[in-house]
């Protein structure tokens, strides 16, 4: 490997030997192409004409009135496929194409990454297999249907907790048997090097645009930038542009599920310990022996026991603050925000909105907050409905 993929003590590539050549090949290809003018031009065209970039930075008038300060929404929900995931999939898909790979695999939780991968698989004419936990297959059935319509094969994974972590286990196992011709399109800024670096690069368009749009609109930088944190890709995508702006506060929001104290959550930055899983050293939800714990969150896309290594470093060096909000607050804000703005936020993204709402009337009126609305909530309508009936 060209570099060791470290973010302080975090990151690395803790994988079985059989995967090393594939990661080396991917790293080499990434560094070869990511600044290549043709690659950059191709990706820009795809971002603009296929995905719908740039996405607007929208001033949420009524929501701002409600909370008592200025809230701007980065509209990643308007992207093709309905979430930020397409940014990464177009980037990695183009990389796969430049590497002359013809088969792609991916894991998915909410189904948003699986869907984005399936779209890109269709776009590039690549054979696509999606690994998805059986519980997620059930709770995100609409996305499963869409993936199949794009021509992807969806494999329901029944091992372990039947969620995202197990889908990753199974995708990694499949990859070890098919390393030669298969490109693993990892969905978040986590996993073994070079994925955290690659995924951050392809998601950094969110932050670059948001920073520029904010300066154009209000002539200054925001006071706070906030995003939900599952594996960490939408958050690192928007944070990356502001990390060097010392006066901009960065707030990552993890899922507190039923409450941190209950243990039924998926908030490793708030309540995990450093450990190693899926190729990377990171904060991790585990018992005292190091067995990985079950996680719980209303949002399938955040239901993961680990978190990207760069967020672990940003937490430890205090450049970013990581908070957690509970399912109930998420459901409440889903309703409030939709009624305020006529925009359905994904339950994942609703976490960052819920944190903003928790600051209601606590921040000065001229405070400017940018929320990364990572996806739209159409996929979650059933879950929200079911939880209301209870």
């Amino acid at each position, binding site marked *: 490997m060209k570099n060791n993929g470290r973010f302080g003590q975090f990151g690395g590539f803790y*994988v079985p030997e059989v995967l090393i050549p594939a990661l080396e090949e991917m790293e080499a290809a990434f560094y070869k192409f990511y600044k290549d003018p043709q690659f950059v031009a191709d990706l820009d065209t795809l971002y603009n004409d296929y995905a719908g970039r740039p996405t607007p930075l929208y001033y949420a008038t009524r929501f701002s009135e409600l909370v008592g300060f200025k809230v701007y929404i980065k509209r990643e929900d308007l992207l093709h496929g309905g979430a930020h995931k397409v940014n990464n999939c177009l980037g990695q898909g183009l990389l796969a194409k430049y590497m002359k790979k013809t088969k792609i695999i991916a894991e998915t939780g909410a189904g948003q990454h699986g869907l984005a991968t399936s779209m890109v698989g269709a776009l590039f004419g690549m054979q696509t297999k999606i690994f998805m936990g059986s519980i997620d297959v059930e709770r995100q059935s609409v996305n499963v249907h869409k993936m199949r319509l794009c021509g992807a094969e969806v494999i329901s994974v029944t091992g372990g907790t039947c969620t995202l972590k197990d889908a990753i286990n199974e995708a990694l196992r499949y990859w070890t048997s098919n*390393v030669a011709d298969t490109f693993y399109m990892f969905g978040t800024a986590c996993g073994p090097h070079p994925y955290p670096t690659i995924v951050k690069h392809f998601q950094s368009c969110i932050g670059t645009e948001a920073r520029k749009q904010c300066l154009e609109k209000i002539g200054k930088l925001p006071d706070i930038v906030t995003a939900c944190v599952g594996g960490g890709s939408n958050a690192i995508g928007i944070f990356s542009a502001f990390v060097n702006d010392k006066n901009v506060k960065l707030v990552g929001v993890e899922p507190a599920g039923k409450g941190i104290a209950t243990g039924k959550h998926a908030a490793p930055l708030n309540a995990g310990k450093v*450990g190693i899983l899926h190729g990377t050293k990171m904060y991790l939800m585990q018992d005292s022996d190091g067995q990985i714990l079950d996680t719980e969150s209303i949002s399938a896309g955040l239901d993961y026991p680990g978190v990207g290594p760069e967020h672990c470093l940003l937490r430890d060096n205090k450049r970013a603050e990581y908070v957690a909000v509970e399912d109930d607050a998420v459901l409440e804000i889903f309703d409030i925000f939709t009624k305020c703005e006529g925009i359905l936020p994904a339950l994942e993204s609703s976490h960052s909105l819920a944190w903003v709402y928790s600051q209601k009337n606590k921040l000065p009126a001229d405070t400017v907050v940018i929320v990364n609305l990572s996806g739209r909530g159409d996929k979650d309508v059933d879950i929200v409905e079911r939880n209301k009936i209870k």
Partner: protein
Amino acid sequence: MKTYKQTFAELKHPALIPFFVLGDPDFDSSFEIIKAAIDAGADILELGIAFSDPIADGPTIQKADIRALAGGMNIAKAKELIKKIKAYKDIPIGLLMYYNLIYQYGTEKFFADFAAAGVNSILIADLSIDDADEVSAPMKKAGLDTVFMITPNTEIERAKRIAEKCTGFIYTVSLLGVTGGRDQLSDMVRPLIARLKAITKVPICVGFGVSTPQHAKSLADAGADGVIIGSRIVKIIEDNLNDKKSIPAKIAEFIKQIKQAIQLN
């Protein structure tokens, strides 16, 4: 304590190395099963400590991990079971496990405690030589041998570097993929053994997919210094859970068949 070196020097045939998940299906049955394997002719034991997320393992060993964990296996009990096995017979033991369990225990302390319990080496499935610095020094300090994996897609220069870091043996993976029984021996394995024989004198033990006496025999013919049989043996446990008492004899019978096949050399 018997070393790998002594074992490989004494043997006139490749070492027979069965794999078990410690505590599968429960502590006491596991001890009986492993004793039977030793009596039937195992030369070295490869033992796993169950992990919740075994990414290098196929369905058979995944299920064994789940059984062991459900049966109450944990790190402390694994150590206890190893001590009991060593008290029964001084046979070399290699652990095969995932890094997080070691890291949580405290890497140095884990190596020291398990060396003291009678373990000869610890192969970490999700740690390559690129991060060997984190473990090689404390392993050496604890008096452990080092074992790393080489796979059919490992480039020759890298294979040389791996071989240099192995003091015990090279865990040679016969195929591209995860653990699991296979009908056919991978056609990648003979060329791999030949490539490795040309670059190193470190013993070459072959595992993953080795399932039948015929497989073991052809590996012996190809020059392997050891054959590691995992999923096929663990499957015997899985298939006889409703009659646990019958398992030791069935495992013993299978191991004798393998032994016979590799002694024919």
